């Protein structure tokens, strides 16, 4: 248990996080996330956060040590895609029972690890700690250690009992597990001056594949993507990369910063969402690589690619200008997405009536002000009731948000488009932004919205 609380404290102290730095010592100790309010609706737990952060690693067994609740409700629940192994989509759990709670679940866990190796021969096993075994004192670190020794295979403990805190914290704990047990344990078969890591990209709906061709064209090799479409070996040997791009979230900033600290790999934060943001990301990555010793021609090659791709994308977006101009959008999402899609939407003439900043940093907020003006309506915290009222008052024509807010939007008679993790369309890169606008267009012009907004004809007048 002490190791969990130590880890949590370490994560809270994360110096790479601007939010953390702005806090007093005392505040930092309390943690980054708001204390949960008992009785109020809440999101996922630390286990959930750790699991979704690592689950996209495709070729390992993700073994959840706990009663059936944790894995039973969550296996294969995320649309992160794999081009190869599908092992990550199978649900593995120790499914502990009453007797295990009484006598301890360590032996069962050990046997489960053995059976998983016997049957599936994975390059590694990730073992997730959950509330119940953590409470009864199962020492998964020790079990993993023993299993690793016995079976000669990496067995990675992920200390993520749900009670440790929020989902966001869980993301970070997952990062710690990678840092402690995976990264740097193997060597790549060869390296190039163009090797990069992507951190915080989960290949949801195959978004990595929208970006990867751009990298390929520039000759940039993705040594590891943490964790979308990743293989264990890639992550184990990713400490030989020349640069890291941290996308889309502060959640894994601990990995990026500590890799800089340990292996001298510089990182920057970028986004694949939005046209100019995609270009910035490519530009910064190329710059960073050149600074790290890659040939200077990479810069001009990158500019050329950017110019061509941007032109193509704007061309495609033009079609939508007429149909979307003047439509008002409410963005309920988190982090960089709160500003990164804004410019593309503005380009087709849409008006952003508000954007949520609950999960955004001060930096994100600055960006929002830059793209949306000082008047930008930033929504700090929005209860479903408030969201409903805002939508109901028809201050927006469409809401872009995660699946959880979907039904609020629908009940408020509001077209809605999923831009979070359960979505089915990929919106990254240049193509992705065109796809997003196309989807907005479809959502806005679906005839059901007219139906939804009109009362039953007999109630009129």
């Amino acid at each position: 248990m002490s190791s969990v609380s130590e880890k949590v404290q370490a994560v809270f102290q994360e110096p790479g996080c601007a939010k953390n730095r702005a806090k007093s010592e005392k505040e930092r100790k309390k943690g980054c996330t708001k204390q949960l309010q008992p009785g109020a609706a809440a999101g996922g737990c630390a286990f959930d956060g750790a699991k979704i952060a690592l689950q996209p690693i495709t070729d390992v067994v993700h073994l959840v040590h706990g009663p059936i609740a944790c894995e039973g409700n969550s296996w294969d629940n995320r649309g992160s895609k794999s081009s190869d192994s599908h092992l990550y989509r199978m649900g593995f759990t120790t499914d502990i029972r009453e007797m295990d709670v009484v006598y301890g679940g360590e032996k069962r866990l050990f046997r489960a690890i053995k059976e998983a190796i016997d049957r599936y021969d994975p390059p590694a096993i990730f073992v997730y700690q959950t509330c119940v075994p953590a409470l009864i004192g199962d020492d998964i670190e020790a079990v993993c250690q023993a299993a690793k020794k016995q079976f000669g295979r990496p067995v990675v403990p992920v200390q993520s009992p749900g009670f440790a805190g929020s989902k966001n914290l869980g993301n970070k704990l997952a990062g710690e597990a990678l840092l402690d047990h995976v990264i740097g344990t193997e060597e790549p078969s060869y390296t190039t001056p163009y090797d990069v890591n992507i951190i915080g990209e989960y290949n949801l709906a195959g978004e990595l594949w929208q970006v990867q061709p751009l990298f390929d064209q520039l000759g940039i090799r993705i040594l590891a993507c943490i964790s979308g479409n990743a293989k264990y070996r890639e992550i184990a040997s990713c400490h030989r990369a020349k640069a890291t791009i941290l996308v889309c979230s502060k959640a894994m900033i601990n990995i990026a910063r500590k890799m800089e600290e340990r292996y001298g790999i510089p990182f920057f934060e970028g986004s694949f969402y939005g046209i100019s943001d995609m270009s910035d990301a490519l530009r910064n990555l190329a710059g960073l690589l050149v600074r790290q010793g890659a040939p200077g021609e990479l810069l001009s090659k990158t500019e050329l690619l950017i110019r061509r791709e941007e032109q193509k994308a704007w061309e495609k977006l033009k079609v939508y200008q007429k149909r979307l101009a003047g439509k008002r959008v409410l963005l309920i999402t988190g982090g960089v997405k709160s500003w990164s899609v804004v410019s593309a939407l503005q380009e087709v003439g849409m008006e952003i009536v508000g954007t949520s900043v609950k999960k955004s940093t001060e930096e994100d907020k600055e960006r929002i002000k830059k793209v949306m003006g000082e008047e930008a309506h930033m929504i700090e915290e929005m209860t479903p009731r408030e969201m409903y009222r805002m939508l109901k008052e028809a201050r927006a024509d469409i809401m872009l948000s995660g699946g959880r807010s979907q039904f609020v939007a629908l009940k408020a008679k509001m077209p809605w488009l999923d831009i979070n993790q359960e979505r089915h369309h990929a919106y990254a890169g240049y193509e992705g932004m065109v796809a997003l606008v196309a989807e907005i267009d479809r959502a806005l012009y679906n005839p059901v919205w007219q139906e939804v907004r009109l009362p039953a004809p007999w109630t009129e007048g």
Partner: protein
Amino acid sequence: METNGETKSQNAEHVLDHFHLFRQPQYLEMFERKKREFEDPACADEVEQIREWTKTKEYRDKNFAREAITINPAKACQPLGAIFAAVGFEGTLPFVHGSQGCVAYFRSHFSRHFKEPSGCVSSSMTEDAAVFGGLNNMIDGLANSYALYKPKMIAVSTTCMAEVIGDDLNSFIKNARDKGSVPQDFDVPFAHTPSFVGSHITGYDNMMKGILEYFWDGKAKTIAPLERKPNERINLIVGFDGNVVGNMRELRRILELMGGDYLIVSDNSDVWDTPADGTFRMYDGGTKLAEISEALHSKATISMQSFCTPKTLPYIQGKGQETVGLHYPIGVAATDQFLQEVSRLSGRPIPEALEKERGRLVDAIADSSAHIHGKRFAVYADPDVALGIAGFLLELGAEPAHILATNGDAAWEQKVRELLDHSPFGAGCQVYPGKDLWHMRSLLFTEPVDFLIGNTYAKYLERDTGTPLIRFGFPIFDRHHHHRFPVWGYQGGLNVLVRILDKIFDEMDRNTNVPAKSDYSFDIIR
């Protein structure tokens, strides 16, 4: 069954069924030899070439230039519709004057669709009857069926054979009555239903009008015509409907919620859905005979399918009733219209319960809108059903591309076009009255769609063109029990929505289910 049809061969100890038998090596070899030695076949390349050619625009033009031959029609004949209307009345035996073969078809048609026995008799005309007229067959036929099956009413329609030789039902039935085949006051309404005119929906119309005329206008001059004394009741005529079992019960539920006095004229939902409780019911449920007479006094009549009642409705109107013609209401707007008409005629408000159902359907459509939006559909069905489906598709943001009805006419085409013109989603849609399924085949090849909506016969189109089929309409032979689910009303709309969505998701899964090839998109959450 442990048989592995692929490897074991046929012998007395081990008899293979048709799924496996002809896949055995000795049969494959035999077919090959037969083809080679006796069939003088065209070379495989040429066969393939012709097959490909049938998919081209050039072939389509030739196909649409067809004048004489109909290939794979999507319609049936008049007596089928006449029987459909007739069995909706209490204790009524449909009696088709003509050859018995036709009637065997009608019975099997209904039985295969509804999975119920379908009682219906013919006068079994033979060559003699064709030469000398079918009067004796009518006399004997009515006597036998009255004695054997003890109906409360016999509704007589005709096959082509009787029509060609010009048998006069009115006088024949009168003759039979005089000869004592049936009691003098036994009800024998009738309708001429030649198959070479119109289709089953025409037969429905003729039989329905025939029965009403018989009861209202003096039972073929045996009594005085009825005098109309208007009351507040509202009649509903449902038309020829493959989903009748589910739809009738839903309709009754809706009307009960509305409150007021209603009469469904011809309700065959019970006779085609009898319980397995040890009792054989040759007749079950249906509109009471006394109610047929009473129906004259009703305030108004709503036809749920106008193209099934082009003669019946004006006839009723001529009696002084207000009439309303609908087109198989599927979905929100169509159900709205139906309820508003009922509300207007009955003077009763639409209850909150129905308004809630409406909201739920709208909610369900909204939940799933992204998946249906912009999908292209081809539809063929009976005229009213096609209109109902097309209207619902437009509501969902789907794009109908081809709407075809073999038994649709110019008036139907006009109606469909009006409907399409009301929605941007109807912009690219073509309407094909009088065309058949071979025309549809060309359409699906030259202007492909995402999904096809049609009856069982569309499975050949699905196979040939690879267009996924959503089964809807009549007949559905190869899937069971669809007819038990309503498609009318808001609840019915939900059923149709789910049927469409299931196919969309099935296709999505089918396109992503190859292990290690396409299953990166084989998701549990859609």
